[in-house]
């Protein structure tokens, strides 16, 4: 299989602190490779090295089997592009943002218009060309950033937590765009994520990262099938709970995850399991409410993380669980630390991993 980019024995040290240690990794042509690991595991640094934005302290980077040095770095940069976790846009129109890279490549104006329109269509932002990019919603802005990268038709697309700061609707659109880019445009993608569900479903291969090292590389089935130590330790902070599953009288699966917390799932598993609930799938309310969701918990907000257009809340329901809501909802509900809230999610939202 043709290698697009390859890191050989790459180490990166920042101010005496090792961010990456002896990394060996290849991204193969046409694949989606996910870098899965907790915050601070070195995913972003690795992507920046692949994007030629950072130079390794030790080791070598190869692009199409050619060793990259400062001499050929700018040429290699034209064949890869990166979308950052924090959306960064030029302070101008959507059209000019998307056209920027094409202009650098001296693409004729007529082709620029075609490529920009194609990219905007791909991210479902047709007709937004004249809008000021920074006046769009958070989700739309991230889609503009994706369009800007896709318009370039680069060999390699690097995505740093592409859905981390998005609401469920925009996250789902972005995931669809990633799959389309890979399937239809044949773009090779390397993406960093800490979303277990995304890592399980999107990529062809996963590289598990922890403390600046790659502990395992394999397919989704290989990685999730054996529930490695790295995955288990990482899982503890990401709405993943270990427990004992049994089939209840009504036929659903009941998983006891300790501290009196029982989660209802659809999948028929028994015995020791780990379950994951996406923070985006959880509905939060200040009062108890009737719904079809089989899982309903009462808890208190113990942590608030403001991420711009969205807010991540950690709620103690006996076990800490992370919930993601929009900033607007957060403000309208007048939430604060220690506010008592009710959480609900469907049994079908519970992924057994």
């Amino acid at each position, binding site marked *: 299989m043709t290698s697009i980019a390859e890191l050989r024995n790459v180490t990166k040290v920042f101010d005496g602190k090792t961010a990456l240690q002896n990394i060996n990794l290849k991204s193969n042509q046409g694949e989606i490779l996910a870098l899965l690991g907790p915050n601070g595991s070195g995913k972003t640094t690795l992507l920046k090295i692949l994007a030629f*934005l950072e130079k390794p302290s030790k080791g070598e980077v190869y692009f199409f089997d050619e060793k990259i040095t400062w001499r050929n770095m700018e040429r290699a940069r034209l064949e890869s*592009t990166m979308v950052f976790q924090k959306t960064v846009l030029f302070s101008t129109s959507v059209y000019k943002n998307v056209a920027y890279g094409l202009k650098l490549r001296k693409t004729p104006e007529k082709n620029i218009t075609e490529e920009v329109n194609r990219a905007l269509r791909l991210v479902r932002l047709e007709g937004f060309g004249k809008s000021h990019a920074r006046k769009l919603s958070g989700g739309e802005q991230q889609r503009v950033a994706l369009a800007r990268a896709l318009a370039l038709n680069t060999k390699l697309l690097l995505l740093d937590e592409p859905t981390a700061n998005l609401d469920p609707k925009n996250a789902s659109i972005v995931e669809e765009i990633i799959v389309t880019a890979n399937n239809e445009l044949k773009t090779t993608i390397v993406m960093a994520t800490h979303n277990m569900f995304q890592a399980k479903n999107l990529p062809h291969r996963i590289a598990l990262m922890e403390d600046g090292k790659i502990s395992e590389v394999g397919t989704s089935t290989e990685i999730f099938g054996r529930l490695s130590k790295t995955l288990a330790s990482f899982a503890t902070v990401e709405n993943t709970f270990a427990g004992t599953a049994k089939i209840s009288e009504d036929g659903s699966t009941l998983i006891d995850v300790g501290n009196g917390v029982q989660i209802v799932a659809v999948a028929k598993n028994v015995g020791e399991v780990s379950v994951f609930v996406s923070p985006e799938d959880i509905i939060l309310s200040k009062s108890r409410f009737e719904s079809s969701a089989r899982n309903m918990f009462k808890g208190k907000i113990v942590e608030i993380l403001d991420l711009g257009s969205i807010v991540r809340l950690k709620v103690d329901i006996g076990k800490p669980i992370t919930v993601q809501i929009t900033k607007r909802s957060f403000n309208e509900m007048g939430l604060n630390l220690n506010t008592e809230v009710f959480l609900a999610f469907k049994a079908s939202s519970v992924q057994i991993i």
Partner: protein
Amino acid sequence: MNILDGLVRALQLIFSGDPRIVEITLRSLFVSGSATLIAALWGIPIAMFLGRSNFCGKFIIKTIFNSLIGIPTVVLGFFLFLIFSRENGLLGFLGILYTPTAIIIGEAVLVLPIVVSLATTAIEAVDPDIANLAKTLGASESQASFAVLREALDGIFLAGITSFNRAIGELGVAVFVGGFIAHVTELLTTGIKLEIDSNNVDVAMALAIILLVLVFGINLALNFVQRRKK
């Protein structure tokens, strides 16, 4: 002549297109514009360096530039006079004392701290990821720097306007290194001083009105253009 008579006579001079008034006005615009341009050509690269890098002593350099904004023009003019003095000045051999060139250089030195300080602040306010974004879209180092500069354009624009206003309105440097040579170094500010000393209130008032109209007019026009661009 009372003030009202002076004002009427001043307006007559302006609207009749008095050749001397026109000449002084055009020279002032040229000298201040050139000084601002030269200061921008030095100052923006310095601001790019200060705004985009972290090094020991950066704070001290920024503080020096900030402090120099308030330097009295008379003091700067006096030192420049000593430097350009044809008899024993350090740069006396250039023979530029009492020429528009000397005023342009002097005013460029005067407004350089304004350009550097305001442009540095504007560049520091740009998202630090903009340069990396440009690079990952295929930009070279210089193209990435240009992308940062474009993001800081509003602040740099402000630095330019402020510098021009300071240059066109200052008297100290113009008097010390330009003197009062008619048809050679006479500017709006030195012209006002000269005409007052000669008891020509009407001409002084005409020049003062033009100076005020220029400062307000140019500011208004540029702000209007900037607003339309947004």
